[in-house]
């Protein structure tokens, strides 16, 4: 039982990260109906940028951990948001009226470019964050030991999810985002500045990705240029699991994926854990073809 609880919390912690990346994925998907394959690389970028800033200015020593990391997070988010918006301009906007699969190829291309650019700038060797930035206190609860930072990471994911959800569902601009997702022309006829909507989405999505990268970098301490590939795929899986385009779905999907992985490792096989996760995904999709909280299909004949 203790083992189970421990593994369950391990899973939640891993899943929290997946969820955070998945949020950005889903956000972009929701509007552009575009699987932004470059999202994983924006995540990598966030991790590298965080490291660069932190090694050149020890923000955490200047301002103290809390403010220092907050400032760092804002900087990283700002920078990745900027790159994201630039990406939209160059690789996605010219393809706005193209067949969907063409855009997928463009996104794959963008992913390759970003990944290799990072490699050329930073080198292929893995790099390491400064040590001891985050406090490494561990809390014991009911015989389960949970590092404090994991709880913090988890909370950040939840808070961001809720904020994003409220923004999309409850605000007027959020409704405009959803409208632009369905029919850009009609949205324009409502007076919605679709270009601005897309720009904002491409600021928020990559910012979230960058943020996730920073957190992974800070907490796990190492970055390398291919890290986005694995995490990107996981986050994409999570987003689909929850129902792509759906914000609470991304959260749920991420957490579930993390827990499946942890429990799969614990009780079945570590080597097969990813296969198990995919198998569960497939079974869930067979039963619920649009994911757990997926969009209700509103197509009438």
């Amino acid at each position: 039982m203790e083992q189970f609880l421990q593994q369950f919390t391990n899973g939640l912690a891993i899943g929290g990260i997946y969820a955070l990346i998945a949020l950005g994925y889903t956000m972009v998907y929701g509007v552009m109906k575009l699987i932004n394959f470059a999202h994983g690389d924006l995540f990598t970028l966030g991790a590298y940028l965080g490291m660069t800033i932190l090694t050149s200015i020890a923000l955490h020593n200047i301002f103290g951990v809390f403010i220092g990391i907050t400032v760092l997070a804002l900087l990283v988010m700002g920078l990745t948001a900027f790159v994201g918006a630039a990406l939209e301009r160059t690789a996605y906007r010219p393809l706005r009226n193209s067949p969907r699969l063409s855009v997928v190829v463009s996104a794959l291309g963008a992913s390759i470019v970003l990944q290799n650019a990072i490699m050329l700038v930073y080198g292929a060797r893995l790099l390491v964050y400064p040590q001891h930035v985050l406090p490494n206190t561990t809390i014991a609860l009911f015989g389960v030991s949970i590092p404090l930072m994991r709880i913090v990471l988890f909370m950040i994911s939840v808070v961001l999810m809720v904020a994003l959800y409220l923004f999309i569902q409850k605000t007027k601009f959020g409704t405009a985002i959803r409208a632009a997702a369905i029919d850009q022309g009609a949205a324009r006829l409502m007076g919605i500045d679709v270009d601005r909507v897309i720009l904002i989405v491409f600021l928020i999505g990559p910012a979230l990705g960058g943020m996730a990268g920073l957190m992974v970098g800070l907490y796990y301490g190492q970055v390398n240029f291919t890290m986005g590939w694995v995490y990107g795929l996981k986050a994409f899986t999570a987003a689909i699991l929850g129902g792509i385009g759906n914000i609470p779905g991304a959260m749920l999907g991420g957490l579930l994926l993390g827990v499946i992985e942890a429990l799969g490792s614990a009780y079945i096989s570590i080597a097969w854990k990813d296969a198990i996760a995919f198998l569960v995904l497939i079974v869930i999709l067979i039963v619920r073809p649009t994911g757990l909280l997926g969009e209700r299909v509103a197509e009438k004949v």
Partner: protein
Amino acid sequence: ADTVKIGLMAPLTGSWASEGQEMKQIVELLAEEANAKGGVLGKQVELITEDDGGDPKTAALAAQKLSTQGIVTVIGTYGSSVTEASQTIYDENQIIQIANGSTAVRLTEKGLQYFFRTSTRDDEQGRVAAQTVEKKGWKKVAILHDNTTYSKGLADEAKALLEGKVEIVFYDALTPGERDYTAILTKLKAAGPDGVFFTGYYPEAGLLLKQKKEMGWDAPFLGGDATNNPDLLKVAGDTAEGYLFLSPPVPQDLPSDEAKAFLSAYAAKYNGATPGSIWAVLSGDGFRVAVAAIEATGGTEADKLAEYLHSGKEFVGLTGTLSFNEKGDRVGELYKVYSVTGGKFALQAE
């Protein structure tokens, strides 16, 4: 155009790019040095590098490309299945291949005449690992690999040797490239081993050590030579203290003049860096062996070179003396036990 052409096939892109790029740096440095000393047989050495992307299909093309360029020998590559995809191509073209990071036993069991390697085989390292485990007196051992050819091969060898002598309480694989291994560590811990033998690579090893500490678990870890990379210390920080691993000695630990000279030249050329990967250093040994053989036979004829290399003649390498047996494998005891002490890699006394 009167040069001696030597090929280097290495993963310059893809997930092993860091290893490959270091190989290129090392071999380029050695080639420059050789040329500065007047080259080989009075001719300049021309180095031709091709990227194998760490992928068998690309490697096959790289091998075809190199074999059309009149090279005498080729150094490389990293990863057994990648090497294997190129083996027959070089063999059919009668080009000496000296692999540097391919440890699968079967590569030299095919009776290929022109294939050599400066790395040792999984069974050799497995043997040393089993010895070490026994010496440490571990009764219950956990073996963790990462399902790559190398890592799995080593784990299997060690397992086979340890079976019956100690209890193997855990045997499974993690997925490399992830960041969070707490689920695996939790499971490992529950198996209650006296020590863990991890046969994967240094990034994962670093994370395992760090997260193990975080969990408040302090079972000793023994690693394979793929964890011999200074970056391990950066990743794991002080949690690496006490970590044991097996490795051929790296130049830093060799008293020989060659090794010292190499290190200082490397640092001079590449902004004070030291080579991080032992495999990359082994590519340097490959180059040195190739050059020595050409000098010794006084020609570039593959058959003669192969015969000479097979003869058991000893060469002075960056990783100590080396010679090849009739299969093309490096002979001699190579592996040493290292530990992390005081934040540094330290060679354990025998």
